[in-house]
């Protein structure tokens, strides 16, 4: 058993657990006095959340914020103090000597350029998922991490969650026997869940640096919807695959130690939120995972439905030969022991032959008198994290810890690319009507 798993046998108290997780992942004791200065690039919903979680860590100070909409810079000062340096230009942040690390929470089409530039400028990077908007950019990020030796952690917080660590422990202990299938889903049913984010009343070319926002994407005339609801457009976002499938891949890869599928297919459509978006609001994907030293061959099915006819729900079902593990807010194991005998279907045989069959069958599987001990244990065990548990906090805790220890993070550029790759191929499959083949080891299209 690895050291990162041993702690679960000791304690279930939140603080104790978290401290031990940290200790297990970092060689030297953590000193909160090691001061770390961070900057935020992209101060929207996710960026602001990341910023809050990061500033909760001891010894972390936010010094600068960049955004293309002035209102967000004003808001940053309102929230985090007037002494913040704010700018529309992320380059002005990267040249600052007082910034140790940057949180990148821009629209997807800017991730790779900014992250690579930040690493080259000597900054550690926390980059929102998906790590890249285009498969072709993945290698650039992986190479930059290698060449610069910077810490880069991608923002799928599940990878740092004690819930997923528990699921990983149970999976590795063989709690469900041999894995044969995984289903994961994210259902939503609201306007804001479907990315109809609010547009500020003062949105205009005066308050927004439109050219800068468009950046590497195709030129387009100003349209406030395209900046404030950028997830709805392929020019800037990656649809449900990059927003949500990537979380599901990250969580699943972490639990099973899988590195990715070899084959990807996706289907769906734009069914309800016909607000000008060019991405589907219902998307389903099927993925082939070949056998590796960590897991048998299995199939993955992913689903995102933004018109779910119910409330929001997200989770995983890991199906194995001896039970099912569901992962959501907690982990549930339902065990079904294998049959003790196969049973028979003899009613179409002549009576004599039936008798002969059953005689032989009973020689092989003797009929035992049922005893209390023969009652088969079908158990459902539920593991819940402590009340108020926050995996986003833990994910930022890990990031900050690794900035200090300089040890490799779990969700680094390679992990991030192995989650983003199949997610982006889901889009490619959907939009190009084809099956996509992927080599998860080299992270290349086949």
């Amino acid at each position, binding site marked *: 058993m690895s050291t990162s798993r041993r702690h679960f046998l000791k304690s279930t108290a939140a603080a104790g657990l978290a401290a031990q997780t940290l200790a297990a992942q970092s060689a030297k004791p953590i000193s909160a006095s090691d001061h770390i200065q961070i900057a935020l690039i992209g101060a929207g919903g996710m960026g602001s959340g990341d910023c809050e979680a990061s500033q909760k860590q001891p010894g972390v100070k936010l010094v600068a914020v960049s955004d293309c909409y002035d209102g967000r810079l004003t808001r940053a000062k309102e929230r985090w103090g007037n002494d913040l340096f704010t700018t529309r230009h992320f380059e002005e942040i990267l040249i600052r000597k007082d910034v140790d690390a940057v949180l990148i929470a821009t629209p997807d089409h800017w991730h790779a350029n900014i992250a690579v530039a930040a690493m080259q400028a000597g900054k550690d990077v926390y980059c929102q998922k998906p790590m890249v908007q285009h498969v072709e950019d993945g290698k650039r990020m992986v190479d930059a991490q290698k060449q610069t030796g910077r810490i880069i952690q991608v923002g799928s917080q599940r990878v740092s969650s004690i819930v997923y660590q528990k699921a990983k422990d149970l999976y590795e202990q063989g709690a469900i026997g041999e894995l044969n299938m995984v289903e994961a889903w994210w259902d939503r049913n609201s306007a804001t869940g479907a990315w109809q984010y609010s547009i500020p009343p003062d949105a205009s070319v005066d308050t927004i640096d439109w050219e800068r926002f468009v950046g590497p994407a195709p030129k387009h005339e100003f349209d406030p919807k395209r900046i404030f609801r950028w997830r709805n457009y392929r020019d800037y976002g990656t649809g449900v695959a990059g927003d949500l499938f990537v979380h599901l891949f990250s969580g699943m890869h972490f639990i099973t130690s899988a590195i990715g599928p070899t084959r990807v297919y996706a289907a769906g459509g734009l069914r309800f939120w016909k607000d000008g978006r060019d991405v589907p609001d219902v998307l389903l994907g099927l993925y082939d995972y070949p056998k590796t030293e960590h897991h048998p061959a299995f*199939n993955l099915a992913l689903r995102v439905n933004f018109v779910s006819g119910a409330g929001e729900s997200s989770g995983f079902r890991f199906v194995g030969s001896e039970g099912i593990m569901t992962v959501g807010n907690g982990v549930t194991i339902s065990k079904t022991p294998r049959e003790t005998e196969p049973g028979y279907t003899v009613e179409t045989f002549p009576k004599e032959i039936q008798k002969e069959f059953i005689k032989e069958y009973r020689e092989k599987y003797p009929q035992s008198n049922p005893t209390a001990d023969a009652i088969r244990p079908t158990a459902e065990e539920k593991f819940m994290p402590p009340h108020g548990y926050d995996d986003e906090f833990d994910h930022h805790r890990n990031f900050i810890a690794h900035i200090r220890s300089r040890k490799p993070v779990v969700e680094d550029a390679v992990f991030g690319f192995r989650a983003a790759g199949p997610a982006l191929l889901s889009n490619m499959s959907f939009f190009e009507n084809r099956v996509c083949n992927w080599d998860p080891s080299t992270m290349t299209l086949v």
Partner: protein
Amino acid sequence: MGSGDTTSAVSLPGVELAGVCDLYTGRLARAKERWGNQIFTTRDYREVLARKDVDAVIIATPDHWHAKITQDALAAGKDVYCEKPMVQKIEQGQAVVAATKQHGDRILQVGSLYVSSLVYIKARDLLTAGAIGELNMVEAYLDRNSAIGAWQYSIPPDASEQTVDWDRFLGTLPKRPFEATRFFRWRNYEDYGTGVAGDLFVHLLSGLHFATNSLGPTRIYATGGIRYWHDGRDVPDVMLALMDYPKFTLELRVNLKAGLPAENFGFRFIGTEGVMTTSYNSVTLAKTPRETEPGYTIDTFAEAQQKEFLRNYHRQYPQQRPIADTMRPESEKVFTAPKGFDAHLDHHKNFFAAVRSRKQVVEDAVFGLRAAGPALLTNKSCKEGVACNWDPERMLS
């Protein structure tokens, strides 16, 4: 399946069993034990078709014999109840459809009982009435977890070349030495069966097409593998498929080692205003009305802008003091079929009613091919790693 079909059929008024054909002599002996010594038995189905006292036949052979015997039976003037899938090979479908017309409008009903099930009639009525708004997705699944569920049927102790007509079983397939497992567990081999696709997907597709009035999907993709039942079979025991219907996406799942204590079968129909789930004997309707206002995400705007935003927002969506009437009706209704309900028997009732009335059945050859076609394409997709196109109107791949 054949014995089950026969038991249902002979329980109906005015239906008499006249003959039985099987390639294992034990089954012929058993037929006489069960249904009387007077019945005619043979290993040669043509002898059954030649009999003037036979009005209709139940065809429950392995899949690779379906099309040939069905066509011969129709040509001999018999009405046909044919087990699903109607054909083993997609190319055989059009000929079977044509045969039902060539021979004086014979009745052909395919054996997917959901088409006659009260549960799926109820589901169809609810969908048509808009109970869940506009449909956008359907999940259909059949999970099993037992040896018998995974087609490890029993092999009689006297199975041999003397008691089994092996050559006739093989039919037009290349000759190979006798193997009792291949005969009694034929579903495990693509030579004779159609795997998960033809045994189970076809049921799900029949139920779906009936409940949604769909002709079929335009694109089909499937994947899977042999994950657990490594008993020499050459067909997957886990299979997943995605199909594009004009207005919704279908996901199919069959897992023969599903980690569950019991078989789990059903559909989830997802609509804009709710979710309808079905099982063997019930329909559950859970409604969630759409939002009355879209909500907002303004915490990253400057305070002054937040205030202005909220003013505008509440002008458009006035803030109201909640009153009892604004409580949103969320309901979950369960419709359960009456006690003693038997979809299998109802399906046979429909068949014999059509034999008498000469009015066509719902699950005729066209319906049967529209279910079998996409199901069989999942096998092709899974094997070749490609997505397959299908024209559901013309039934061409």
